[in-house]
């Protein structure tokens, strides 16, 4: 696997696109949780709207980058109408169009109105659905793969999008409120992660036919790196749940400070996982 500027750009665009889409799709759920505890949700709404608009820009950039790649990596190819049309008419183009519409709808969170939130929820659904419209989930049996990737993506979005909000809550909210939100998040997380595992297991069974060949390749190294990072993330999450959340509820000021740091670390590791995932899905597989 060679590493060059074009590949770095492809990975960066894709990872940033994942991050924006997941933040935009998942924030509506966290806003609902935080709003019930009476905290201001404005910063989270602004973050989601900003992520949505950035996500749309990244989708457009992704279309242009693909056209450039397909034509040999030149600026002329990036502007070639035939190549751009080819990309837009491909499953990637369909997914990008649905995701862009979903992102636009998700930005309605900024309105801070019940109607706007309903539109944003519809946008979240569209964003999640867009992940079932291109890539390996187009294989058979699609009737199973499509819902599995949607459940999987929804769970990841719910998790990732909550982290900035949790950080803000632990920074500014009163202790009982912060403890209530963090605790409520933890209780829901068990169900969400169970769904994530079930969906991932289903995809593993359906798609893992060539795992042996892949783990011997450079892809295997990337997967190993990703697993290490995820293991670190899980360790931090467990520490938050078992130690810091009870300590926060008991009024320990050090726990609040530490929780902010560990949530920030979780977010950082989450972004690193997205980068590794983007590298995996951007790199042409062995045999090409």
């Amino acid at each position, binding site marked *: 696997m060679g590493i060059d500027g074009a590949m770095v750009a492809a990975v960066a665009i894709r990872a940033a696109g994942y991050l924006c889409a997941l933040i935009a799709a998942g924030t509506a759920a966290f806003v609902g949780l935080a709003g019930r505890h009476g905290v201001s949700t404005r910063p989270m709404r602004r973050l989601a709207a900003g992520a949505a608009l950035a996500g749309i820009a990244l989708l457009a950039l992704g279309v242009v980058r*693909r056209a450039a*790649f*397909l*034509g*040999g990596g030149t600026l002329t190819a990036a502007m070639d109408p*035939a*190549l751009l049309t*080819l*990309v837009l008419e*491909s*499953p*990637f*183009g369909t*997914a990008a169009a649905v995701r862009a519409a979903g992102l636009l709808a998700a930005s309605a969170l900024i309105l801070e109105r019940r109607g706007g939130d309903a539109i944003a929820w519809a946008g979240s659904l569209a964003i999640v659905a867009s992940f079932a419209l*291109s*890539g*390996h989930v*187009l294989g058979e049996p699609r009737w199973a793969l499509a819902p599995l990737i949607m459940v*999987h993506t929804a769970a990841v979005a719910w998790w990732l999008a909550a*982290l900035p909000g949790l950080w803000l809550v632990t920074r500014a909210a009163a202790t009982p409120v912060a403890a209530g939100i963090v605790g409520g*998040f*933890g*209780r829901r*997380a*068990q169900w969400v*992660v169970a769904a*994530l*595992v079930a969906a*991932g*297991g289903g*995809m*593993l069974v359906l*798609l*893992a036919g*060539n*795992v042996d060949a*892949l*783990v011997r390749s450079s*892809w*295997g190294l990337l*997967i190993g790196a*990703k*697993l290490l990072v*995820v*293991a670190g*993330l*899980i*360790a931090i*999450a*467990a520490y938050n*749940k078992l130690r810091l*959340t009870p300590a926060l509820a008991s009024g320990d000021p050090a726990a609040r400070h530490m929780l902010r740091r560990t949530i920030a670390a*979780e977010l950082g590791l989450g972004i690193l996982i997205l980068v590794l*995932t983007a590298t*995996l*899905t951007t790199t*042409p*597989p062995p*045999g*090409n």
Partner: protein
Amino acid sequence: MSFPVWRGVAAALLLAFATAASGHSASDATTPSDGAVLDAPPEEIRIRFDQPIRVTMVRITDEAGNEYDVAYDRGAATKILIGRTESLASGAYTVEWRGLSTDGHTASGEFGFRVE
């Protein structure tokens, strides 16, 4: 984040392998074959794919980096790409291709041959 560690580890494993098992188009045979030494220049090149692909670029270059024309049906979905080449002198050549898989992924590859 709050959930049992074992669930998280299982999720990580599943996430990683589900991602790794994506299905892109790959070339599984070429004519000339990779590394072939030919007595005469080929009139055409063939690339066979394991699933239909829309090839958008085929480029033949020699050791000096000079490019040679290849005529092919650009952008048409096919499992076998046939490209007609201009006459090639003695030397080593590299064929690069790029295309779009039916699942929306970009794909690329290259192979080389020598004309004696």
